[in-house]
């Protein structure tokens, strides 16, 4: 049996916040709701989209899979976030796969119904554009961080500054703390650490970051500056 979405929940989705109650009720009629079990795929990378999905509750992993089968998490979607607006609005294949990391409830609207909503409520279209503009800005900042390697250099400096001197363990830092120090996002720190490990400069040994080659790491910090 198809579940019905609550209009209070609908008003918390970014595209529909600010709509009058009567308008929300009209939009609500076009939505459907479904539950997804933990571990189940919501959609696959490369699939076209038939409906626009919002996350109602739970956590969803958005990820890409490399040709070698290696998984890279792009982000973890939180409640009220949209999951697949890119492939809905450009009619292209989904750039990511989405998998439920917990029991999840998603709210969806089919593309033809979405088109009708956008025609009837142009303010929703404005919200969609604002959302894409904000995300584009974030991506540009991320590209700048990754392209110019400033972040890897800053992460390396943090590791060198906080490493134990060999006589005992150094300070303990979470990835979030490193990100705050480096002025970047947690996910970028995680990728930087992976990149340093692949280069053989550090080794990630469960809760330890082991600096394998201190001199090479110092050189890496200098070349990234």
């Amino acid at each position, binding site marked *: 049996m198809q579940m019905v979405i609550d209009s209070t929940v609908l008003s918390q989705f970014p595209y529909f916040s600010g709509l009058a109650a009567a308008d929300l009720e009209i939009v609500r009629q076009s939505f459907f709701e479904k539950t997804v079990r933990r571990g189940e795929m919501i959609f696959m990378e490369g699939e076209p989209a038939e409906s626009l999905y919002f996350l109602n509750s739970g956590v969803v992993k958005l990820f890409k899979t490399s040709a070698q089968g290696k998984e890279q998490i792009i982000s973890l979607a939180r409640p009220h976030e949209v999951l697949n607006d890119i492939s809905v609005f450009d009619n292209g294949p989904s750039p990511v796969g989405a998998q439920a990391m917990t029991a999840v409830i998603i709210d969806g609207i089919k593309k033809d119904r979405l088109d009708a909503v956008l025609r009837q409520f142009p303010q929703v279209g404005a919200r969609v554009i604002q959302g894409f503009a904000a995300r584009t800005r974030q991506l540009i900042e991320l590209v700048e961080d990754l392209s110019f390697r400033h972040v890897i250099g800053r992460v390396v400096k943090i590791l060198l500054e906080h490493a134990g001197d060999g006589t005992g363990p150094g300070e303990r830092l979470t990835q979030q*703390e490193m990100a705050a120090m480096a002025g970047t996002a947690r996910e970028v720190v995680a990728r930087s650490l992976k990149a340093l490990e692949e280069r053989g400069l550090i080794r990630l040994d469960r809760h330890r970051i082991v600096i394998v080659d201190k001199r090479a790491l110092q050189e890496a910090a200098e070349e990234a500056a």
Partner: protein
Amino acid sequence: MTQMPKIDPEQCNLCGLCIEVCKCGAIIIVQDKVTVIETEECHWCTICEAVCPTGALTCPFEIILEES
């Protein structure tokens, strides 16, 4: 002793997301408190820390120099 993720009970709002995402079953509720149990199955994926909405659960890294 196996190093495990840390939980700050005062910041924890018992949302349970960490328990749901944990693949190794290291996080459980004991007497209405989220508790991390010691297990070598924990591979420090840090996803529990990533999903925690309050920052109550953390996976701090120890940074050390490899012994020559």
